[in-house]
């Protein structure tokens, strides 16, 4: 984690002695620097110190202090702890910070997110538009002085509901009886602007090919209702014939205000919301959030809980990859048949989740300092049956049916290539990064929980095309099976919670960035606590959202038909992309 190690402290202070200061607020870590030195610092960090991978960019609104803080997390793709650096700017309009996109292109979408939700203007950003909300939306929702239409109180539990138990419908407090609010003096009939204009203007900026005939280029929209965008995702492409010359992902159609709601909720209330981030991998999301809060609280789960956590997280990975294999093959033209095979196996894992957590998809299983309940009788036996006997055989079977198929090879091999250099530049994580040949896996690079006890390989492939991204998932399923097998053998008896289960946890002031290797990539939670029962800032570093930064560069130059294949191979889930 970003707690400065002594060697790192020495290196950085000797190089930047006059530029940076250690963050000395209690519970905080990392480095503070002035925005005028940001570009210089980041360039040196990348080129001289090898922190080539910018994991997360976000902002925090410190309203009482009148400051905005922009928090960056950078890591080395060779592994090891990262560097957290922060820029503080006065909270006056506009809040301006230099953009890091020229140095770390992976910051592109994240800076757009910070602009959209917090109103931080990144000067020098190539395409600073709203990303989740539409152009023309009033206000910056994550600022602490912005209130949603159903606003009741700053924090939960709301006093009029608890403890009296009186139910108030949120609508009844709103003058339109609906979830809407307008600025003063707004006349809907004078509304004349087009929220789509900025998108199309941005789409028209691209490198024109001067050679050959001068042809008209056309804009095509895929989605938001499109069967192969895996939800309500939209892709706007500029086409020259069938070739893509520019591409912009458009998102926000499932922006459910996870972070705003998360800052109103108490810590434990957020756990079920994390299930709904990436709804295919709820256990993994629980894991990341629990780790971040446990880091703040300074507690650790007991042995047995750790083993159960790891088993659940790896099962989630398998079920996610199975779903991906089914849907990617669906996109590549195999229609629903591979999905039927994959889902048949996934249902077995969901059965285990249902037995353990009570729900198929939204498990809400982890607690701070342990897990909600122990494995019920017979579950361990069932896990052993499935993962020692059935799954290794079934995965090989699916692999045998699909991998050498001629259509899959011709649609996958050499298509949508992401070079290793680009993968790191665009902050790609997870299978997307490893398919490009970079062996970076948070479970190995910075082991959390008890991952240092298990034998497994970090799977990589060489070419970084659609086919390799499919195959790397098969490899990862096999490694996950290995981990589950080891965990099922070693799991000890014992308690499952270190602390008493409670409705409200006491979290000391401070900040923490907890990250796990989710099935889609690095899933990080950045949490700032001010000592109250609710987080002051709650930010999710969503892997499928940030992996989409590389989507445009991967598609440009390809044919339009490959867009769905490339998108399917990135593996996005809209609940996590839009949050």
């Amino acid at each position, binding site marked *: 984690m970003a707690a400065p190690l002594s060697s790192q402290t020495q290196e950085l202070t000797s190089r930047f002695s006059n530029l940076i200061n250690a963050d000395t607020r209690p519970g905080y870590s990392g480095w503070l620097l002035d925005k005028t030195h940001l570009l210089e610092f980041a360039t040196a960090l990348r080129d001289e110190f090898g922190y080539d991978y910018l994991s997360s960019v976000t902002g925090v609104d410190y309203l009482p202090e009148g400051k905005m803080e922009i928090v960056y997390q950078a890591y080395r793709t060779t592994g090891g702890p990262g560097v957290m650096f922060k820029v503080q700017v006065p909270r006056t309009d506009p809040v301006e910070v230099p953009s890091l996109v020229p140095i770390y292109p992976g910051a592109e979408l994240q800076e757009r997110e910070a602009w959209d939700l917090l109103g931080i203007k990144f000067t020098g950003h190539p395409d600073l538009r709203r990303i989740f*909300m539409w152009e023309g939306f009033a206000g910056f929702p994550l600022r602490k002085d912005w209130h949603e239409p159903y606003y009741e109180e700053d924090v939960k539990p709301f006093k009029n509901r608890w403890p009296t138990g009186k139910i108030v419908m949120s609508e009844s407090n709103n003058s339109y009886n609906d979830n809407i609010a307008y600025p003063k003096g707004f006349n809907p009939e004078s509304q004349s602007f087009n929220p789509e204009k900025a998108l199309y203007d941005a789409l028209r900026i691209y490198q024109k090919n001067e050679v050959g005939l001068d042809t008209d280029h056309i804009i095509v929209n895929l989605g938001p209702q499109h069967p192969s965008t895996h939800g*309500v995702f939209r892709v706007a492409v500029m086409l020259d014939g069938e070739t893509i010359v520019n591409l912009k992902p458009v998102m926000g159609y499932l922006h459910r205000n996870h972070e*705003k709601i998360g800052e109103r909720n108490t810590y434990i209330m957020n756990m079920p919301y994390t299930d709904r981030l990436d709804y295919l991998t709820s256990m993994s999301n629980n894991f990341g959030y629990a780790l971040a809060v446990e880091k703040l609280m300074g507690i650790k789960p007991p042995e047995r809980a750790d083993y159960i956590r790891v088993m659940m997280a790896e099962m989630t990975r398998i079920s996610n990859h199975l779903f991906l294999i089914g849907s990617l093959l669906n996109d590549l033209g195999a229609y629903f048949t591979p999905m039927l095979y994959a889902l048949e196996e996934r249902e077995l894992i969901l059965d285990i989740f249902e037995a353990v957590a009570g729900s198929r998809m939204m498990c809400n299983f982890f607690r701070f300092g342990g897990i909600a309940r122990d494995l019920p009788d017979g579950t361990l036996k069932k896990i052993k049956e499935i993962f020692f006997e059935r799954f290794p055989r079934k995965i090989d079977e699916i692999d045998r049916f699909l991998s050498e198929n001629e259509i899959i090879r011709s649609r996958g091999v050499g298509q949508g290539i992401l070079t290793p250099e680009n993968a790191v530049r665009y902050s790609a994580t997870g299978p997307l990064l490893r398919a490009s040949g970079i062996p970076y896996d948070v479970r190995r690079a910075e082991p959390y929980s008890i991952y240092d006890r298990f034998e497994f390989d970090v799977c990589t492939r060489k070419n970084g095309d659609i086919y390799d991204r499919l195959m790397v998932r098969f490899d990862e399923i096999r490694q996950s099976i290995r981990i589950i097998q080891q965990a099922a053998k070693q799991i000890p008896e014992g308690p499952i919670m270190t602390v008493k289960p409670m409705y409200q946890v006491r979290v000391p002031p401070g900040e923490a960035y907890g990250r796990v290797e989710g099935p889609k990539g690095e899933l990080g939670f950045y949490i700032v606590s001010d000592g109250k029962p609710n987080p002051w800032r709650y930010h999710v570093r969503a892997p499928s959202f940030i992996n989409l930064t590389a989507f445009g560069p991967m598609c440009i130059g390809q044919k339009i038909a490959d867009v769905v294949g490339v998108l399917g191979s990135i593996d996005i889930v809209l609940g996590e992309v839009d949050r």
Partner: protein
Amino acid sequence: MESSELNAPGYEIPPEIKGQIAITSLDRIYNWGRSASVWPMMFGLACCAIEMICAAASRYDLARFGMEIMRPSPRQSDLMIVSGTVTKKMIPTIVRLYNQMPEPKYVLAMGACASGGGPFKEGYNVVSGVDRYIPVDVYVPGCPPTPQALLNGLMKVQEKIRGESIKHSRWYQKGPDMAEIPIPMLGPDLIDPRKVDLIKNSEKA
């Protein structure tokens, strides 16, 4: 439906042709055909869409009810399954899709979010239930509903279809078609064209 159900009592059918002939009312045979071939729109919004896919896949097998053909185009579908959180950015598209579906059309609100906002109701970008804009026939509770719950909801849709009559159904009557639902606009916040006057007046007050 069994063939014995189709055979209306009171009419004598000679035993030698009983296997080939059924006497029934037009409503019954027509609704039987419609209810056994509902084509849902292939259109997933959020978490519930995954359970919808599971309902269509190996274990739960929607095909048993004649519903396995999911159409990505609204022009070819009878049933819109609103499977997930409806956001303000998405509702113009949903209303447009609904307007494009041919009559008779049905809407099933799947899950807590589509029915009333669900856990995300307080969010600034969330519509408090899709029924604020389009009429909903069946609500399926759950977060997300299990595939079994969805199947139950779909059977309720079939029940509803079987209870209809050609004589009384709106879409077979003379007179104007049902007016299209005005498509919401995106401004400083979501603008429902039906509420323009209300918005204007409340600003004056």
